């Protein structure tokens, strides 16, 4: 009989454990994963709007209003976006479903702070019920400069603070006017240029020569003699099953890693990659966070990296110069430039700085978090020197600024369906980086991203002062 009771007790504990697992998992859903799950575009509750609540505002870093709700004559609220296209890919829209900050922070925007008091005051004194407002890290001064520079060129610009991951500006074109999304919905949705897609966070581009920063890093990590490794560039080099050309078949002569990066010599980096090998290059790509999930308020695409151990040689050498099947987002490239500027520490990007409650009080500031360490501070320092060389004496001359040292890397990505994409990633001032930037211009002339990046760095440095 006692055996019977003993096993019964054990069964009780087993089942009780099952129930405690349920409690734990339910808690995890409600506390940890809440925002991520409920913010999904499929959630029908996103379209549900409490008509009696005035949705909170979206503000830039200095309090400029990017989205607000205005009371109409019929007693309902209308969502307005004073800066219209200029911040469209940040605010997103709130009409035919929701995107951007409107989707990500939907519940904050609809949450009443001190709900009981607000409702009571609403009944007694007829005051309006107002949701929490969101204060962003974005600086509209920089955002406007970026928007004007981009103009009607397809592409994206991401400006970031290297030490924290704060997004200072995020522009993408084609864009849309969030005030009129509902009217033009079908045209916007079906347009072949997909203006509703945020190219800054969701556009996947081949990185072109900007990828050479990672190839160079792989050389430092895996080759003992990387400093003395030189290659005689004749403008064209044959590998097992692939011929690599330098731009315009230009011969760079005998170059070392520094000279090759400055001149963006494809042959050198292809040869370097052949020496490193696919497995080790792929390892460095992992280490640089290319495959790492990170958290960002707005919807983003993960990079696509195809290079694996045992890849063919053509795949290896193409990847090394940023042409293979690798796809990266401008957001990630800004994170990469920031990480090099920030002693190898890659920070999590974020765009929501804090919440502003209806009574004017502010919530806690978002705490910057790191994604990963892509390299040692020493390696970051060397990369930084090499990237400074790119701007002072190499392909990135157009990004140079008077009185400030800029570090960067240019890129031209071959595009299978049309003209090349022009890239620039970089940061300034090189000695004490305050701003990092990633610019991509689609279907563009060689080097057209470089001067744009220079002007944005200037504008951002001015704005930060």
């Amino acid at each position, binding site marked *: 009989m006692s055996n019977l009771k003993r096993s*019964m007790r054990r069964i009780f504990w087993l089942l009780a454990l*099952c129930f405690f697992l*349920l409690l734990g998992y*339910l808690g995890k859903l409600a506390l940890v994963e809440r925002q991520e*799950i*409920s913010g999904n575009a499929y959630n*029908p509750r996103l379209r549900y709007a409490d008509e009696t609540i005035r949705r909170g505002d979206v503000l830039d870093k200095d309090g400029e209003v990017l989205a607000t709700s205005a009371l109409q004559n019929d007693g309902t609220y209308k969502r307005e976006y004073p800066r219209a296209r200029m911040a469209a890919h940040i605010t997103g829209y709130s009409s035919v479903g929701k995107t951007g900050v409107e989707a990500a922070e939907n519940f904050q925007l609809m949450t009443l702070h001190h709900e*009981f008091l607000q409702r009571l005051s609403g009944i007694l004194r007829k005051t309006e019920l107002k949701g929490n407002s969101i204060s962003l890290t974005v600086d509209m001064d920089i955002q406007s400069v970026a928007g004007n520079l981009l103009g009607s060129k397809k592409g994206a610009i991401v400006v970031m603070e290297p030490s924290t991951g704060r997004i200072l500006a995020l522009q993408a074109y084609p864009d849309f006017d969030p005030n009129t999304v509902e009217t033009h919905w079908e045209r916007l949705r079906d347009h072949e240029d997909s203006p509703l897609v945020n190219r800054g966070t969701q556009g996947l581009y081949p990185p072109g020569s900007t990828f050479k920063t990672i190839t160079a890093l792989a050389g430092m990590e895996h080759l003992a003699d990387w400093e003395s490794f030189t290659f005689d560039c004749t403008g064209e080099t044959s590998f097992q099953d692939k011929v690599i050309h330098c731009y315009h078949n230009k011969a760079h002569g005998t170059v070392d890693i520094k000279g090759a990066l400055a001149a963006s010599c494809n042959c050198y980096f292809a040869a370097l990659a052949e020496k490193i090998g696919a497995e080790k290059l792929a390892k460095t790509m992992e280490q640089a966070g290319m495959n790492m999930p990170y958290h960002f308020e707005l919807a983003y695409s993960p990079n696509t990296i195809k290079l694996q151990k045992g890849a063919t040689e053509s795949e290896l050498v193409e990847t090394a110069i940023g042409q293979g099947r690798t796809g990266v987002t401008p957001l990630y490239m800004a994170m990469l430039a920031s990480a090099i500027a920030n002693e190898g520490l890659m920070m999590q990007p974020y765009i929501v700085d804090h919440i502003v409650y209806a009574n004017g009080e502010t919530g806690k500031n978002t705490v910057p978090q790191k994604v990963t360490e892509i390299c040692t501070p020493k390696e970051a320092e060397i990369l930084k020197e090499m990237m400074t060389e790119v701007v002072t004496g190499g392909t990135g001359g157009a990004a140079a600024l008077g009185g400030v040292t800029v570090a960067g890397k240019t890129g031209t990505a071959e595009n299978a369906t049309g003209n090349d994409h022009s890239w620039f990633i970089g940061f300034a001032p090189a000695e004490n980086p305050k701003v990092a930037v990633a610019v991509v211009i689609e279907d563009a002339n060689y080097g057209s991203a470089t001067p744009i990046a220079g002007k944005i760095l200037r504008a951002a440095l001015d704005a930060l002062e």
Partner: protein
Amino acid sequence: MFDLIIMLSRYVFVLYIILFLWQGIVYIAYEQGGFLGNPYSAVSMQRRIVVLMHITAFLVLSYNPETHLFDWKTLGFGAVSFGFLLMSVRLLDRYYYEGCPLIWTGMLFLMDVSLIMLQRLSPALAYRQLVWMCIGLAGMLFLPFFFRLIPRFEIFEWAYIIVCYGLLLCTNFFGVEKGGSTNWLSFGPEAFRITFQPSEIVKFLFVFYLASVFRKRVEWKEFLTTGFLSAGLVLLLVMQKDLGSALIFVMTYMVLLYIATANEFLFLLGMGGASIAAMGAYKLFSHVRVRVAAWQNPWADIDTGGYQIVSALFAITTWGLLGSGLTKGMPKSIPVVESDMIFAAICEEFGVIFGAGLIGIFIMLLYRGVRIALDCKRRYYSILAAGVTTMISFQAFVILGGVIKLIPLTGVTLPFVSYGGSSVLVSLMMIGLLQWVCVYCEQHYREEQLPSEQLGMERSGADE
């Protein structure tokens, strides 16, 4: 104004469930020799909480903020179901005088939540649910008479398993499909068609069968026959695509086998066998693979396979700890919300804390059920009580875990809460059986104790 009241009601409901659980703890503490409060007032307090919750919820549900009037139909149903609650308390007090009071109040709480939620989701279903609850209650009250009539019902072990097979085979041949599973029997003329799930009734009989066999010493013969016969039942259930019930049967068999033999090795062996069988089922049946895929990554396939689980997750996470407030959420966007997914609707409108509280009530039921099994001196009744407790608890776990994506979602009902005639009926009968065991053991315990108590008195007299 009404919004304010609904907002406040969210806190009130959370308060109710926390107080309810706390009173349960007070009662248990007293039993264990501690003292946190008067145990008798704890039980009456729990009953009062159920009554208050019922009144609060039906007032909220019946008020129409546009016309500022109360809906008489809703109020009427509230009053009728209130009468049902009071009547069941009276009748249970009378006919199961020595049953465990915590199980009664816990059951009433769950049934009341069910009526409230169904009234909110679909009043017609709430009405039918109430009718089934009345039938279940009647059956439960009849149970003690039945057992008095047939005192040694353990000798019918073969009859139980034969009826089990009969019912399930009937479903295999004549079953109709509903909600993706062919586990419904439907009969009667078109106008009064009754559909029911035989697997629910089979659950009840299956526990009787296993307890009857395991009351004797378990040798190889018993092990093999029960093993094969149970596996056969499980196979029939899997073929009907009733995976949840199949899982519950496997678990109940393993648990009762372990309890009867106290053999850990056999338990682990059985678990290993069950895992291999599960893997085989995964390979063989596409509907099993669909369920697993929807569980692993529902987000990949939101439009079709993952839709159900994803909409449940939206409902649970959107409004947070206190929920949207009764009537303010969108639970109707969840498929089969009235039956299998009702927990998601409860979490949505009453909040996650309330949902956790419901899990707490199931833990309380589990604890009390095991307590009864442990206190019972007769092996057969003890195993019977353990079997019933395991079945209800594990069924609750399977569906709760499925809804919150802890385990793959399989369509079974949440005992007492989900809409479903056969489910409510059988759950009530199972609790009735458990309480009957409790009453029986109390009475026999007293009869055994009586002479020894007298002995003790004599001895203490002698000391003086």
